[in-house]
């Protein structure tokens, strides 16, 4: 029997940042793109996010942060995933990310890094492309 494979994505807000409107809009957009979206609310520690990602066996962790702590918290999530042998879990980020911070985050495998005003399709395409290439091994 054929089945339609679903992208499972965790939308997470690490750290002290209560601005979840963007994350909620993304949840909705990912859902409408046919993904299964796990949302765990605001004020999550990197440890909570990683445990959730592992238990839910997600393809993607999408981090949203607008308070400036992305250079600490994004890499921390990525690092914990690597420590738990889950380096194949895709990590994307977004929020208020200054241009000069992006190269370092991308070097660590945290991609996307879209800011306010980005078209939803751009973000969805980025996620789908990475999943197809890295998780499903379809070029």
């Amino acid at each position, binding site marked *: *029997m054929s089945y339609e494979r679903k992208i499972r994505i965790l939308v997470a807000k690490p750290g002290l940042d209560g601005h979840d409107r963007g994350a909620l809009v993304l*949840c909705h957009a990912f859902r409408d*793109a046919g993904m299964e979206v796990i949302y*765990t609310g605001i004020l*999550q*520690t990197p*440890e909570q996010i990683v445990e*959730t990602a592992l238990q*839910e*066996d997600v393809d993607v962790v999408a981090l949203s942060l607008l308070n400036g702590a992305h250079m600490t918290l994004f890499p921390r999530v990525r690092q914990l995933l690597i420590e738990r042998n889950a380096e194949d879990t895709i990590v994307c980020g977004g929020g208020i990310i200054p241009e000069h911070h992006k190269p370092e985050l991308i070097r660590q495998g945290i991609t996307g890094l879209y800011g306010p005003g980005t078209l939803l399709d751009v973000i969805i395409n980025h996620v789908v492309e990475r999943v197809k290439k890295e998780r499903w091994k379809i070029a």
Partner: protein
Amino acid sequence: MELVKRLLSGDMRAAARLITHIENELPDAREAIRLIYPHTGKAHVIGVTGSPGSGKSTLVDSMITEFRKKDKTVGVICVDPSSPFTGGAILGDRIRMGNHFTDKDVFIRSLATRGALGGLSKATKDAIRILDALGKDVIIVETVGTGQDEVDIVKAAHTVLVLSVPGFGDEIQIMKAGILEIADILVVNKADRDGADKLALELTLMVDLGHEEKADQKWKPLVLKTVATKNIGTPELIETIERHLQYLKSSNLLEINHKKNIEREIIELVNEHLINHLLGIMKEGDFEKLIEKIVEREIDPYSATDEILKKLYSN
């Protein structure tokens, strides 16, 4: 199988991955179930159902806290609906359970219904088996927000909790057949709100009436009041849940119900297999042609069914 070995040694990530394989109907999923099946049947499976917004997830969070106080390990399966249009889903039950994310003895997994009706997803039963084999003492299954008739949880759980909240209609709603009938324990959540006492009284009256009619039925569903956000009533609830399990064991119902459920499951599986087999032996396009004929009213649905079944007998 490597994943099964890891699962049986208590590796949470193997459980997570196996559930994904089950959900995606990967070829090795069936083999995995075959291997773990002898290791299942130990956990107490508790179903939590009720209308959307009645506080199921919050109550589950509060239940986890109580079970952990008693040193029980807990598995949780939360089911949320898939969109019938895009197939996407928002799995948002976990959001109420954040306190337990980093507790090594709590495993929470969200499943989307993926088109299944009845309040659970197709993978739910096997997901329960996987958490059972992982060694969880208690497995809590939270259904989608239910209305009146999504009662599949009785086929999967030993003890069923049905949540009601004040303000959802009058006593006629309570008299209706369906979801309230499947409860082993009726929970009036948000009991700090107006109308909670009245609702509890109406539910108690319903239970009393039904109980008189069936004198042989020994377990009388209890009505309990909770305020899940404040952990009020949860200790009593857990105590009642454990008492219900004792009752099931002493009355032999645990075994009788289990047998019934297995019977139903096998019939469902054979059903599904037969349909796939039938559609498989039909020549390409034949099924569509038949449907077209019915649409054009050249043939009626029953005759069309006969035509399909003929293929089975001639094969």
